[in-house]
């Protein structure tokens, strides 16, 4: 039986840590025996959230980004990415596909749309000067399937 579990890591807001965050979340999620596709979804969503914290939250200045994750109900992965950066004034607008404040940096404005598509749940808490907290959840299906299959056998 899968036990509940939690992790937390905090790292500097430099672009090199985007790959670091992806590796960390993938390693933590492995205990849920996700499919290759599920792992790619999780890594992509985390990559988007961490990139947002670095590019928009801290705008290239140095601050700390925290990645927290937990596993509960045997198959539910919850992820939180938070920063103490400048925050988002209009969350609804920020979440619109193709909306970007950085067209000159060729930012596509698709970050939140990718998180929304690849995860089951997404919520954003933010206010100017208060930083941003992104919460995402994904139910990992592969283990359910495996357990059902064992049942039948």
């Amino acid at each position, binding site marked *: 039986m899968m036990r509940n579990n939690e992790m937390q890591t905090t790292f500097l807001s430099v672009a090199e840590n985007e790959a670091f965050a992806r590796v960390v979340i993938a390693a933590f999620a492995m205990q849920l025996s996700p499919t290759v*596709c599920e792992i790619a*979804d999780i890594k992509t969503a985390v990559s988007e959230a961490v990139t947002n914290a670095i590019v928009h939250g801290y705008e290239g200045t140095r601050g700390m980004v925290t990645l927290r994750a937990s596993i509960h109900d045997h198959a539910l992965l919850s992820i939180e990415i938070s920063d103490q950066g400048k925050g988002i004034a209009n969350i609804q607008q920020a979440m619109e596909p193709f909306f970007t404040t950085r067209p000159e940096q060729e930012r596509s404005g698709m970050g939140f749309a*990718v998180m929304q*598509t690849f995860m089951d749940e997404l919520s954003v808490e933010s206010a100017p000067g208060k930083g941003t907290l992104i919460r995402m959840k994904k139910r990992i299906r592969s283990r359910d399937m495996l357990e059902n299959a064992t049942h039948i056998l």
Partner: protein
Amino acid sequence: MLRSIRDGDKLLVGLDGELDHFCAQSIRRELDSQLADPTIRQLILDFSGLTFMDSSGIGVILGRYRILRERGGGVSVIHMNDHIARIFHMSGMGKVIRQLDRKQEAVR
């Protein structure tokens, strides 16, 4: 260094590893230095060595498309894996970026 092959007005470039916000900066720089040659009108990006891409890749591809569109050319992509294809189609890039299955089609 990116692997690239030149054939007339076409440039085929192979991308390796991961394409995120961090890697996008150097990939963009290298692509643009090769595209500085104004006789290149078609850019073909070979994604067979690309293991990860997030929405930063969309910006890189569309940015190069804008450069080549000015010259009456365009951008094509070959060998996308399923995950990258999802991001590609989500962004609506399929409308302006050709997706090819084989290198032969790209350099024809």
